[in-house]
């Protein structure tokens, strides 16, 4: 049933996010540290396990895939709620302080990607 898929996804989300909250608390910051990341890893592992055990039927899978198909519409809604006015009207300094770091980081991507790729052949 579709709801089982949604339920599995919700389980991963809740466990991962709470884990992220606790890690934040543990290292003393007022933010969720990697909650979504933990939830994703959990989903990958559970999905793998269920597939091996043959517990996953297509309609259960559809419950998760529906949300990954809804991802772009959600991102569109998210962009429509960004504080774009502030970004545009905050003056030249804020614009540069937002853009220059991105350009610096872009410059090191080919280098980092190279060392990460060369290590996978070993």
């Amino acid at each position, binding site marked *: 049933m579709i709801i089982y898929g949604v339920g599995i*996804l919700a389980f991963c*989300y809740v466990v*991962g996010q709470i884990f992220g909250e606790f*890690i934040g608390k543990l290292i*003393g910051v*007022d*933010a*969720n*540290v*990697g909650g*979504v*990341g933990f*939830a*994703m*890893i959990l*989903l*990958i592992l559970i*999905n793998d396990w269920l597939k091996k055990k043959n517990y996953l039927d297509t309609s259960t*899978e559809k419950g998760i*895939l*529906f*949300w990954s198909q*809804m*991802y*772009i*519409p*959600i*991102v*569109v*809604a*998210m*962009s*429509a*709620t*960004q*504080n*774009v*006015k*502030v*970004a545009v009207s*905050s003056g030249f*300094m*804020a*614009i540069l*302080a*937002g*853009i*220059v*770091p*991105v350009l*610096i*980081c*872009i410059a090191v*991507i*080919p280098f*980092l*990607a190279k*060392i*990460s790729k060369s*290590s996978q052949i070993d």
Partner: protein
Amino acid sequence: MEIISKFLEKNGIVFTFLVVSLIIYFSELISVKATNKKIPGSAIAIIIGLLLAYFGGVATGGEKGIADIKIFSGFGVLGGSMFRDFAIVSTAMGASFIVIKRTGWAGVISLFLGITLSFIGGALIALLWGYHDAISLTTIGAGACTYIVGPVTGAAIGASSDVIALSIAAGVVKAVFVTIGTPFIAKYIGLNNPHTAMVYGGLMGTTSGVSAGLAATDPTLVPYGALTATFYTGLGCLFCPSLLFIMMKIVFAD
């Protein structure tokens, strides 16, 4: 008229489904007819979203883009962090754990490098603009990480409210810039595989920017970029007010 607007307000999310589906339909149409599929429909849809956010902000003076207009308040729910994160997690269904494990350490390096480089870049701009005290420089540098790291750091080290506002603005500019820029720079930096996507997510760090930017570039890369980016804000909140602030205090002691 009033009946309709009251109804739309009450049924916010469903109305948002309708509006977003129309946005995406017209974006696909523009993509095929006007750009011959050179610019993906999702990229156009996201840019239309950002334009709507701008008009919403100008029309209402609020901070939540189009969601501040009452009949579009459903955008705030569908586009809020809960649905966003829920959908991001679901994209992991298509991700390969082997790739993640292999690229894991590069992801970690990219996170630390991304936070440090963004911080230095932001602080450098602030320095050029005449800020010389460690607190302001640190706060603006933190804002260059993400728009959450900025105010968290500023509040922790006692920055003035106008500097905190600047740091938020810098973070929002970054998110918007990454959103729009990613599909256009992708081919120049080899952003077409999971490895690079994980490195990219760690370096950029803005979850909204990375996830929207990758969605417009290649949706199969989203889980990899989002996975590393999701650690960025937390780590930034850890390092900016502590280690990086102490270093700034040593350099800019007065």
